[in-house]
């Protein structure tokens, strides 16, 4: 039983490394220019190329950043959940650093989505905030992962127990998402129905293209920020270990 388990874990690590290592090695060369180009393309496209929406007017151009940010925040929290699970299996503190970094980025993205949503909502719906299903779900997600960061901050950078506890919160927080969606969806709903992923896209071609650029830009930005934050957390862990070792040597 334990031998089989060890073989499975070894295969798992091999797959993770062969898949992720090339991406990881190219991170500083590829991600910043890709992010920059895509973000510039999105901004130019949203302001100049995309047609003016007839009913909502100029404020509708917020869509090109609001929709990608709101969608990709789920990806950031997914990275947190997966990295937490890998940390719990292998107990490698580097995965804890990645999980923590991804949660920080996800918090930033959800906060930005809520903010742009409020700016967009005032002229369109007449209110900054409404208790609509997807708004509420995003707010709850924001609160859950704020709790994750608080729980992780209870211990220092190398506190393995706090890292394990936070990892559990990161995982059950993500499994909770479908339940949150069902409950708030049945609770009430006002948000426009999804028009992008419908069988026949209801958006005109130019709008769809700019939105696609926005998705790519925000995706690369998120990946870049996660690697930055993750590396920073990892360096903090190492600095903390060096400091502890120095204290030890001084006392000796």
């Amino acid at each position, binding site marked *: 039983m334990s031998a089989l388990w060890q073989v499975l874990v070894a295969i798992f690590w091999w797959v993770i490394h062969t898949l992720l290592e090339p991406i990881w090695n190219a991170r500083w060369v590829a991600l910043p220019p890709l992010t920059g180009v895509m973000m510039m393309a999105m901004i130019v496209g949203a302001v100049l190329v995309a047609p003016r929406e007839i009913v909502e007017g100029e404020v509708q151009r917020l869509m090109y950043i609001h929709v990608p940010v709101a969608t990709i925040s789920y990806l950031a929290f997914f990275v947190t959940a997966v990295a937490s699970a890998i940390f719990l299996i292998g107990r490698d503190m580097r995965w804890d650093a990645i999980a923590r970094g991804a949660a920080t980025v996800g918090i930033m993205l959800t906060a930005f989505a809520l903010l742009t949503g409020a700016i967009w909502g005032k002229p369109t719906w007449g209110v900054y905030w409404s208790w609509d299903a997807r708004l509420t779900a995003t707010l709850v997600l924001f609160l859950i992962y704020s709790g994750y960061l608080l729980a992780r901050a*209870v211990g220092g950078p190398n506190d393995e127990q706090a890292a394990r506890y936070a990892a559990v919160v990161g995982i059950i927080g993500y*499994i909770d998402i479908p339940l949150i969606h069902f409950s*708030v969806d049945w609770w009430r709903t006002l948000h426009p129905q999804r028009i992008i992923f419908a069988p026949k896209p209801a958006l005109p071609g130019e709008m769809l293209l700019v939105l696609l650029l926005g998705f790519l830009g925000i995706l690369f930005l998120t990946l870049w920020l996660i690697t930055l934050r993750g590396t920073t957390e990892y360096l903090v862990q190492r600095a903390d270990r060096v400091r502890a070792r120095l204290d030890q040597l001084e006392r000796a």
Partner: protein
Amino acid sequence: MSSALAVFRKDLQLAWRDRSGWLSALAFATISVLVYSFAFDLATADIRPLLPGVLWTTFLFSGIFATSQSFQRESETGTFDAMLVAPVSPSTIYVGKLISNLISLLIVELALLVLTTILFDTPLLTGELVLVVFVGTVGYVSLATLLSTLGSRGSARAVLLPVLALPLLVPLLIASVRATGAALGAPIDSAPWLLLLVIFALWSTIGGALLFPVVSER
């Protein structure tokens, strides 16, 4: 299973010897119903639209405070470490803990239901409502028991438990308030709230039993 029962019996014995724990939970629940009835003027209006919310916020807060204590005393006296050294799986300890927390909370909730029946002249001890209360309580006690292991790291951290648990409990709160409303004869909405409660209770107990070994490890 017998070792889970042993953990459960130990906790119940401790709770009986030191009655301050669940008595203060009961006092807290009573006072919060009084506070609600002054704040929302529950004495005059038709209270059925408000009552589910009043009941469930009271249940949640008294439950969170009660479970946050459940590992604190053990870690102070070293019992928790002794239990982890014992040759039983941590999941068994979790199940025992869960049952004892569940029983003490159900007693508090039952007392509260009787009290509200008397105070507001609304029959609350119906079969449907007791079922909703039971399933909902299983769901949130199992999650709170898992998360309350953080409380074993010193009393200052205990304030973190509500901050962590309440956002995770949002689906449970919505579902149980609606299901309670339906049991009280509110206009029926079509959503299967009781089913959602059952699913929540299942995933939180299974997830708790699977993840408890990870958080309790020293």
